[in-house]
């Protein structure tokens, strides 16, 4: 039955619809709504898992189901579930908007699921816009309206600017090739590698992705939006949203890139610039979320290395890195959400004494931050290692060297975070952080995942390789 292939999307869509209905008919009830969201997102994960084996095309070939897309859907659904786990006390969102909050969250996830399967330029465009618009609104929902609005406006303006550039790029590409399906593009691109319209069109399309991925030069929204958005939304942008965009970039580039030196150069330049800029700018940040924003830019740079090392190894490493990012970024945000003072952003200094207030959270912070920095034996290291391996296979030694130097620079600010958590003495003694049991379990298992997968990454590598192969 062909429609069963559409299971995850249908599930999430129904959940979103449910919240839409709920917001129309029922008075908000935070605990109940949260419970609904938890159950529905868990169901979403279950459905996605059930559909992992799905394969085929839908909607006259504009929509492709393969291992690659299905695993990413599982990742997205899990991302959603994890974010919902963080929404137990949604202080940052006014009570009356809670249902809409969940609604947009689910819609956004739906859009991203569509995105990872998109096979047609129009599908890509629509999925991307849908997720973007949901996020614009989510960002603006913050209780502190000045912050929320400013973050939203900046995010929105950059977003529409980038997407109009992308649309123009699509127009150019279409004008040059007539191809709108990715598989058609794959066939015509090799001959068009020297046609300016096609290649520049391609570049402009990537511009739209770069905006979502927070790659230079469309990283300009990241710091402000991360800082201004509610913590949970920032977490969502940093995790699920990134994963989806990495997926679509991989899909597009695997279709069009036939070892074009130009694209590799451009991507290499952007990658180097992103990571250098992100890491350098992060050093002097005081606000934890803003710091994470810059670190996101840097991580996008690392991912680009995997992406530009075209070939199965490169794509597999990028997939691995994306999945790794999901886990480690989420863990950091978990700590941020739990520790954040009410109504304000978490300053790095306010982590002081965390090792006393909650050893578990401090440990989680340390492991995840080391993972972000790429220190073994964490999953972040494994990710970086495979990315670099792929790059070196293509002979990009200098790129790897620069990336490693960046790792060292980034370590500085990551260490500052750890120092704050483990070393600094808080100005006033704060009470211990209370963590519910499920949250403890979640934190513990996240730590374990990061370490175990970092030490024994084989299954995940095999999975990513299988996904990369299904992409080709």
């Amino acid at each position, binding site marked *: 039955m062909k429609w069963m292939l559409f299971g995850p999307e249908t599930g999430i869509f129904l959940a979103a619809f449910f919240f839409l209905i709920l917001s129309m008919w029922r008075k908000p009830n935070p605990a109940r709504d949260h419970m609904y969201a938890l159950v529905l997102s868990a169901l979403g994960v279950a459905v996605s898992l059930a559909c992992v084996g799905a394969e085929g095309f839908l909607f006259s070939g504009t929509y492709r189901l393969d291992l690659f897309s299905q695993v990413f859907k599982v990742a997205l659904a899990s991302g959603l579930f994890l974010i919902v786990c963080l929404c137990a006390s949604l202080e940052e969102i006014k009570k009356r908007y809670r249902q809409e909050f969940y609604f947009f969250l689910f819609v956004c996830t739906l859009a991203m699921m569509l995105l990872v399967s998109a096979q047609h330029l129009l599908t890509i465009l629509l999925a991307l816009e849908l997720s973007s618009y949901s996020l614009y609104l989510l960002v603006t929902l913050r209780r502190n309206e*000045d912050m929320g609005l400013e973050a939203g406006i900046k995010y929105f303006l950059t977003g*529409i600017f980038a997407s*109009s550039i992308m649309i123009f790029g699509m127009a150019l590409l*279409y004008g040059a090739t007539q191809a709108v399906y990715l598989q058609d593009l794959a066939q015509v691109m090799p001959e068009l590698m020297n046609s300016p319209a096609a290649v520049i069109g391609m570049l402009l399309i990537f511009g739209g992705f770069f905006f979502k991925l927070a790659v230079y030069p469309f990283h300009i929204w990241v710091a402000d939006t991360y800082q201004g958005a509610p913590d949970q939304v920032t977490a969502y942008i940093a995790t699920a949203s990134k994963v989806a965009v990495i997926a679509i970039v991989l899909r597009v580039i695997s279709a069009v890139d036939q070892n074009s030196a130009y694209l590799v150069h451009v991507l290499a330049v952007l990658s180097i610039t992103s990571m250098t800029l992100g890491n350098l700018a992060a050093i002097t940040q005081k606000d934890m979320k803003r710091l994470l924003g810059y670190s996101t830019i840097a991580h996008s740079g690392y991912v680009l290395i995997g992406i530009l090392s075209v070939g199965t190894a490169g794509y597999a490493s990028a997939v691995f890195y994306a999945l790794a990012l999901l886990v480690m970024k989420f863990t950091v945000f978990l700590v941020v959400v739990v520790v954040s003072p009410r109504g304000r952003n978490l300053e790095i200094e306010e982590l002081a004494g965390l090792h006393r207030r909650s050893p578990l959270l401090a440990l989680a912070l340390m492991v995840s931050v080391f993972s972000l920095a790429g220190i073994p034996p964490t999953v972040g290291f494994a990710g970086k290692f495979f990315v670099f391996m792929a790059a070196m296979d293509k002979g990009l030694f200098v790129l790897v060297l620069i990336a490693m130097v960046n790792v060292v620079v980034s370590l500085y600010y990551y260490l500052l975070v750890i120092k704050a958590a483990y070393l600094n003495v808080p100005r006033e003694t704060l009470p211990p952080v209370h963590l519910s049991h499920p949250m403890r379990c979640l934190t513990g298992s996240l730590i374990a995942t990061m370490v175990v997968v970092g030490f024994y990454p084989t299954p995940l590598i095999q999975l990513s390789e299988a996904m990369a192969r299904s992409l080709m």
Partner: protein
Amino acid sequence: MIVPFGHVLMLAGMLFLLGVFCTVTRRNLIMIILGVEVMLNAAAIAFVGAALHWQSLEGQAFVLFIMAIAATEVSVGLALIVYAYRRSGSFDPSSYNLFR
């Protein structure tokens, strides 16, 4: 096709640049959105031209969707901006500089 495709593209390109110019120079949030609209329209013209050039309908379909997107954009954007204006009393993008 009476007008060569290259000319259409050139028109679209110029319109796009105008849109960019409007976006980055006008110190008014609404004008920024308008600039983006212009950029979208430039893309739409390019699509129409390309559709004619290739004699395929997909370009036309794109244009329809672009119009829809533009509409969403204006509605969401205006909602945001009007709300922001109500709070801060300013359309000037430089007055939104809370973060650093």
